[in-house]
C-alpha cells in the first residue's frame, strides 16, 4: 500500500515540479537555478522509476491480495 502511494505521489510530483520548473527557469535564467531545479527533477524522476519497479517486483510476488 505504501509503495502504491509512493508511486502515485511521485507521478503527481513530477508534473507539479515540471510546471514549477518551467516557470522558475523562464523567470530567472541564472545557472544556479537551472542546476538546482534539474537536480531536484532528476532525483524525483529517479524516485518515480525506482518506486514503479519496486512496486512491480512486490506485486509479482503477491500470490494473494497484498
Amino acid at each position: 500500500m505504501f509503495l502504491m502511494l509512493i508511486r502515485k505521489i511521485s507521478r503527481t510530483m513530477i508534473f507539479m515540479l515540471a510546471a514549477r520548473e518551467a516557470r522558475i527557469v523562464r523567470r530567472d535564467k541564472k545557472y544556479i537555478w537551472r542546476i538546482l531545479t534539474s537536480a531536484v527533477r532528476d532525483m524525483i524522476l529517479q524516485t518515480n522509476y525506482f518506486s514503479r519497479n519496486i512496486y512491480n517486483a512486490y506485486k509479482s510476488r503477491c500470490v494473494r491480495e497484498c
Partner: protein
Amino acid sequence: MLKLVDIWFRYSDSNRYLFQRLNIEFREKELTLITGPNGSGKSTLLMIAAGLLEPERGEVLFREKPLKKQLPEARRFIGILFQDPEYMLFNSTVYDEIAYVPRQLYEEKEVDKLVRDTIKILGLSEDMLKRSVYQLSYGEKKIVALGSILSYKPLILLLDEPLESLSKYYRDKILDIIERLLEENKTIIIATHDPDLFIHRFNPKIFRLEIADT
C-alpha cells in the same frame, strides 16, 4: 503454457508502440531467449507475460485462459527475476526474502523446509540466511533474488538479464541452476542482449525483437 496473442503495447508517456500485433507462444519445458537491441522491449515483454503490465490490446493466456482473470493466484506459477535485484529485495534478511511467497501459501514448518531446499539449490551456506540483504554483494543479491522466486517452485520462470554484470563465478552458478531447472521440466524465458552465453550450453528457441520505425 503461456501465450501472448495480438499484443499492442505502448507506455502511457509515449506515442510509439513498442509492440504491434505481437504473437508469441512459450511452450512447456522449453527455454526461450528474447533478444534484441536496447529499447526493443525485452523487459517490457517479460512484464506483460507476468501480468505486471497490461497491453492496450490483445491478451496473455495462461493455460489457455486469460491470465488477467487468474491473478493474483496464478502468480505462484510464474516467477519473474528483475534485471536489477535491488528492486526485488524488500525484506530485512535473506531468510525472509526467500520465505516471502511460501509464507503466503504454506505453514511455517513447510516454509522453513522450502527455504533450506532453496539455499541448497543456490549453493549458498545456511549462515547466509541470517544476513541482511543490504550487506550482500551484487552477485549475492542476484542469487538471493533468484532464490526468492525458486522457493515457491513456479512452473514458468521469466529471467531478465540473469547474467548481466556478474563475475564468471556467479554466471556459472546461475547457468548451473538454469540447467537444473530445465531438467525439472520448467518453462524458462530469458531476456538477454548476449544470447551466446546460453546458446553454447543449451538449445534454446530464440525470439528476436527489433525496434519499429513508427
